[in-house]
């Protein structure tokens, strides 16, 4: 009893000790995988990688070894049950792994284990000590820290005595733990279990599931950590890609709405469009949607933004899903935007792919990788509508959400263009992503009098006072310009109709001016005439007054004379 209790307390003590020293991890060096496993695979323990044929198990395992050598200087042992050393070296050479060189430097040991059941007769008891010896010899000869068994299930095909095999496997994994090597065991996906022979039963520390599925005729790769004992880990299915740099996992699904915001503005490349956004342009690190019908000038707006960004000495990546870089450059040259110079200076990078070339996830990973490598401040995706061809709208939306979240986190301003169907409601963006966008510029065609003209307006722009005006969007050899539309008498006029109306207006103005002058002249004449009349009358008046004075004097004179003569007369008559 006492003995039991001491044993119990000892195990308890051990357990406590393990809790205190957190699980140590062995970094894989595989882009993204260390992030979702929060540091790597469990150090000194076996990890099971399972998946169906062609999902990249061997590649992941080989990369774990190869990167262990090149990046962490940890020698590795690769025990192959399916491919020979030659085959393995050839297969991964295209991914930049030089196995031969590693072997020469005694950093890598590869052993090809060949089992052919038909060549082996079983009689009586046996064990797999031979395997242990071979593995142990390799580990000891180069001081390996990492071991891969690819795929140990081949043993099940080679030996008929499953009971022995299972016991030996259990012993093998225990033995590997005592060797303190971090091990990857690969296993083919089974129907009911994770692996065909239930390897997960023995490898209980960490299980990673690789998946390669075809949706809409396009293959997508995914990776999921099924379990990871003693460690926190990302639980989602993460998009994965295999390219010239090997395998990369995209930890992007783990992003949230926690990105920083900026009050910094970034010009749009079109002066009057800046004016419409309060004179300064887009907010830095926001998402901008330019939607419109075919040929409405979406690419031009995007290219003008790319041009402006590069002109300021900042970097930009242009993801094109419809046109080749050359075609874009030529077309934009015709509207006065020279993108060639920026590409030459290394400020602009084009990446053109057909959306159907690979799955949504692969696009996502590629965008992610390019952004990580190039560090742009602006990204253009032209157009996103085509992505709908390779996924359900929900998937496309979730992919775009992840792209937007990722780019916003990086404070990268993104311009998405989206093609809207001619017949549909123009405010209904194809992918239903408008709610994800901070700024939405809508381009429209207006067809009048036998011509089509482009109209632009800002449907929304979060966080700024933006113009509510409709502008005419003019593409010319001198560049992209915005003009006021003619608004009058209940009609919006654009193009030549606007020109006609404007010249009409000018003529009207001229004739108005002329008639008013004429009227003024007439009045002035009248004024002068009246003034003259007034003068004449004044003269007449003065003449009359003089006349009046003269006649009064004469009268006075005449009366005086008459009186004098009367006096003389009486004197003459000697009157009394």
């Amino acid at each position, binding site marked *: 009893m006492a003995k039991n209790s001491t044993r119990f307390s000892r195990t308890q003590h051990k357990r406590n000790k393990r809790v205190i020293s957190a699980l140590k991890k062995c970094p894989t060096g595989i882009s993204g995988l260390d992030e979702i496993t929060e540091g790597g695979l469990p150090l000194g323990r076996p990890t099971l990688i399972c998946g169906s044929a062609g999902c990249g198990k061997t590649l992941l395992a080989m990369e774990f070894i190869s990167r262990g050598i090149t990046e962490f200087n940890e020698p590795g042992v690769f025990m192959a049950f399916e491919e020979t050393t030659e085959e393995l070296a050839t297969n991964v050479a295209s991914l930049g792994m030089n196995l031969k060189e590693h072997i020469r430097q005694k950093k890598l040991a590869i052993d090809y*284990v060949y*089992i052919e059941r038909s*060549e082996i007769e079983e*009689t009586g008891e046996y064990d*797999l000590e*031979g395997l242990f010896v071979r593995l142990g010899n390799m580990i000891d000869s180069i001081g390996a820290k990492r071991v891969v068994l690819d795929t140990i299930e081949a043993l099940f095909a080679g030996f008929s005595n499953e009971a022995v095999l299972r016991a030996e496997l259990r012993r093998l994994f225990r033995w590997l733990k005592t060797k303190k090597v971090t091990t990857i065991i690969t296993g083919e996906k089974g129907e009911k279990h994770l692996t065909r022979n239930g390897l997960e039963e023995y490898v209980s520390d960490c299980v990673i599931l690789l998946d390669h599925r075809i949706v809409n005729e396009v293959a997508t790769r995914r990776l999921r950590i099924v379990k990871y004992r003693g460690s926190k880990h990302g639980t989602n299915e993460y998009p994965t890609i295999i390219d010239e740099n090997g395998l990369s996992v995209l930890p992007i699904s783990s992003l949230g709405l926690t990105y920083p915001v900026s009050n910094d503005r970034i010009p749009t490349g079109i002066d009057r469009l800046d004016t419409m956004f309060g004179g300064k342009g887009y907010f830095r690190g926001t998402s901008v949607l330019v939607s419109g019908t075919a040929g409405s000038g979406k690419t031009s707006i995007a290219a003008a933004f790319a041009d402006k960004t590069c002109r300021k000495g900042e970097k930009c990546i242009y993801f094109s899903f419809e046109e080749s870089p050359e075609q874009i450059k030529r077309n934009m040259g015709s509207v006065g935007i020279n993108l060639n110079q920026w590409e030459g200076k290394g400020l602009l990078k084009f990446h053109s792919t057909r959306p159907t070339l690979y799955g949504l996830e692969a696009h996502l990973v590629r965008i992610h990788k390019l952004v990580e490598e190039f560090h742009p401040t602006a990204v253009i995706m032209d157009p996103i509508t085509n992505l709908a061809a390779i996924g359900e709208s929900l998937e496309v939306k979730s992919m775009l959400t992840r792209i937007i979240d990722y780019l916003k986190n990086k404070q990268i301003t993104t311009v998405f263009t989206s093609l809207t169907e001619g017949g549909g409601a123009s405010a209904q963006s194809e992918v239903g992503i408008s709610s994800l966008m901070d700024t939405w510029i809508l381009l429209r065609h207006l067809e009048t009098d036998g011509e089509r003209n482009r109209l632009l307006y800002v449907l929304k722009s979060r966080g700024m006072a933006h113009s509510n005006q409709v502008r005419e969007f003019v593409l010319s050899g001198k560049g992209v310009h915005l003009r006021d539309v003619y608004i009058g008498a209940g009609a919006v006029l654009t193009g030549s109709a606007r020109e006609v109306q404007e010249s009409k207006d000018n003529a009207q103005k001229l004739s108005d001016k002329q008639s008013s002058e004429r009227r003024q002249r007439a009045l002035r004449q009248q004024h002068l005439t009246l003034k003259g009349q007034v003068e004449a009358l004044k003269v007449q008046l003065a003449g009359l007054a003089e006349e009046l004075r003269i006649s009064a004097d004469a009268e006075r004179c005449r009366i005086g004379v008459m009186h004098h003569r009367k006096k003389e007369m009486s004197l003459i008559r000697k009157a009394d």
Partner: protein
Amino acid sequence: MKTAKRTKGTKITKKWELRLYVAGQTPKAITAFANLQKICDEFLADRYSIEVIDLLKNPKLAGGDQIIAVPTLVRKLPQPVRKIIGDLSNTQRVLVGLDLKERNLTIGGRR
């Protein structure tokens, strides 16, 4: 057929070269060696040589003959190479494995 093969076998004047791979002096290894010697004495008297390889001493030799399980008996000569794993306790199967006995008969017997 049976006799034809036997005569063919006896015509070969070359010695039979057998290798027994073991990993340490385990009971299985000792049993296997004892069984092998008994069979050889009976069927290949004076025409055989047995080389016992202890993988614990020479681990590098395991790769050459693709040894995974021990004990493994490898018939190096005559060609083609044959492998028999286990402690060789089933004499009939050993004989089949070494091409000293017709396969068909024993397959029937096995079932």
